[in-house]
């Protein structure tokens, strides 16, 4: 692998109360299979907890997953928490059941990329690699 894999530690997190973690677990496992070191928070994390873990564990990227429709409030709250903790340089990716029209405002709020249902895993891995290189 020619990529720079020094910074390959990433966080997969589920903000809010949503228990649908099939997607988050698949992404976590695919990232591990691809050589990343993955920390998965488990379900029901607050935005503050996610930001703290990201900082403590010194991760290169955060991947958020939500299927409950709470992404607008919850994803942006994670960005706000990172800013509050002066860690806004950690890129944040998001995935889940997210309507197309929500993507521009989420990107404006600072989410680097959004992946909806049916996205090939290879695209998501690619985005994590890219984000790590930043």
């Amino acid at each position, binding site marked *: 692998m020619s990529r720079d894999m020094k910074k390959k530690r990433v966080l997969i997190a589920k903000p*809010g*109360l*949503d*228990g*649908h*973690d*099939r997607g988050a*677990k*698949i992404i976590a*496992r*695919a990232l591990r299979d691809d050589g990343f070191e993955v920390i*998965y928070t*488990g*379900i*029901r994390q*607050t935005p503050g907890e996610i930001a703290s873990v990201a900082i403590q564990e010194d991760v290169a990227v955060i991947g958020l997953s939500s299927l*409950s*429709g*709470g992404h*607008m*409030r*919850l994803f942006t*709250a994670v960005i706000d928490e990172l800013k509050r903790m002066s860690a806004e340089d950690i890129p944040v990716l998001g995935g889940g*059941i997210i*309507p*197309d*029209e929500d993507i521009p405002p989420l990107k404006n709020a600072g989410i680097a990329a959004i992946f*909806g*249902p*049916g996205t*090939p*895993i*290879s695209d998501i891995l690619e985005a994590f690699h890219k984000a790590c290189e930043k």
Partner: protein
Amino acid sequence: MQKHPKQKEWEENELKKSLSRSPERKERFLNHGGQEITRLALPQVMDDDYIHNLGFPGQYPFTRGVQPTMYRGRLWTMRQYAGFSTAAESNKRYRYLLDQGTTGLSIAFDLPTQIGYDSDDPMSMGEVGKVGVTIDSLADMETLFHEIPLDKVSTSMTINSPAAVLLAMYVAVAEKQGVAAEQLRGTIQNDVLKEYVARGTYIFPPTPSLRLITNIFQWCSDHMPAFNTISVSGYHIREAGSTAVQEVAFTLANACVYIQSALEAGLEIDTFAGRLAFFFNASSDLLEEVAKFRAARRLWARIMKERFGAKKPASQMLRFHTQTAGNTLTAQQIDNNIVRVTLQALSAVLGGTQSLHTNSRDEALTLPTEDSVRIALRTQQIIAHESGVVNTIDPLAGSYYIESLTDRIEEQAQALIKKIDELGGVIACIEQGFIQQEIEDASYNYQKEVESGDRIVVGVNAFQMKEDRTTPLLRVDPAVEQEQVKNLSRLKKDRDSRAVQSSLDQLKRAAQGSDNLMPFILEAVKTYATLGEICNILREIFGEYRDRR
């Protein structure tokens, strides 16, 4: 040809009794050419193997269905799961569905409600009213069922950890409508074990959760004899990525735990087992799904008879609700989902379901619009009234493939249940992560097949096209959260706070002891104590479950 004595016996007992209680929908079922459609096709030669493994509908081991006339007698209940935003909004949707011919209600609660948080709890941020209706107190429940006569509709509530609280609110609303608890029909999901492995809305650890469930069984035996006290659910296990065999095995293994804990609490098997219901997924492999439903029915009947010594046929019958598989819906070319749902719904009907929810085409994007929900309901109505599959019982029986697959699913599920027992039972398996790992492996393997193109998903990894996604979507207004929080604070000011406090104190003492908690919860909800207040008392005494990773 001579009739087999067992056939005569069935005709003279189960069938005759059923027909005299309620006749079939038509006097004669005819095809387009005017020929009579047979009620129950049977093999030319009925050997012991047939009698032992298939038998007759409405008779042990119920492979061919739980009622002697199946859909010739009564169609399944068309029950569309719905709920979003506020109680008032959801009430409107329910009344629309009832107007459109839905025959039972199915309430979706939002996540804060399902996890026992009020809408003003910091944990509820962003989730209020999103995946279901938000309920803070009896006041919301009164709005939810406004002008819906609870003596006429049956209501299914997808509520688990705080099921006792929502059930108590339902009873209290009925009382205000002048409907006695004995008259209430419906189901509460009340299946916490699958929450730990698949669905995630747990609150308390397993032991106190089982106490609450057993308390409900007991209380309903005395007060709500027509209500299903649990719906043991494989649906979410399958959605989390399990195989068909795992879905059957984990669900029936969980059901055994509930039965065992009720027996240990002193209940007699035949007094409560008849009110256990099940809930399965109808996924895309049509023939495998039909075999799965038949296998689950037979395996459960055998477990109930052989392991638990249940004598009443009602205790041995696996009655189930089905929902089509949400995870198979695609965000691409969403109208294709209508076809997927049709095939899945057909498998549920060919498998003998008692009630059915059909998903809407737009649910990979968001909550369904009214138009999408109507198409989903129409799909069921077309299967029921046009396809003809309802006119003869268990039409796929006797197919070499279906029967061999039914046998194989039963055997493999039985082997997996045995393995769980050997590993120390369901709760030990959850604590060790065995069940979670099994599901996760199956889910990952499936995804890899999709990634590699071995498994085709139309519109996703084959037959793609550029599309302009401008379908109108249903959105829950973010203002709903603020509105609900405002209403809650008004309620807290207006209610008799001394009565609330005293009912909560009594509940706390009862929770510390070993009394049945239902009467205390019922008292508390009637004072307008909130769901969050009641659950917080229980959290204090029972503790909270944390997933170990």
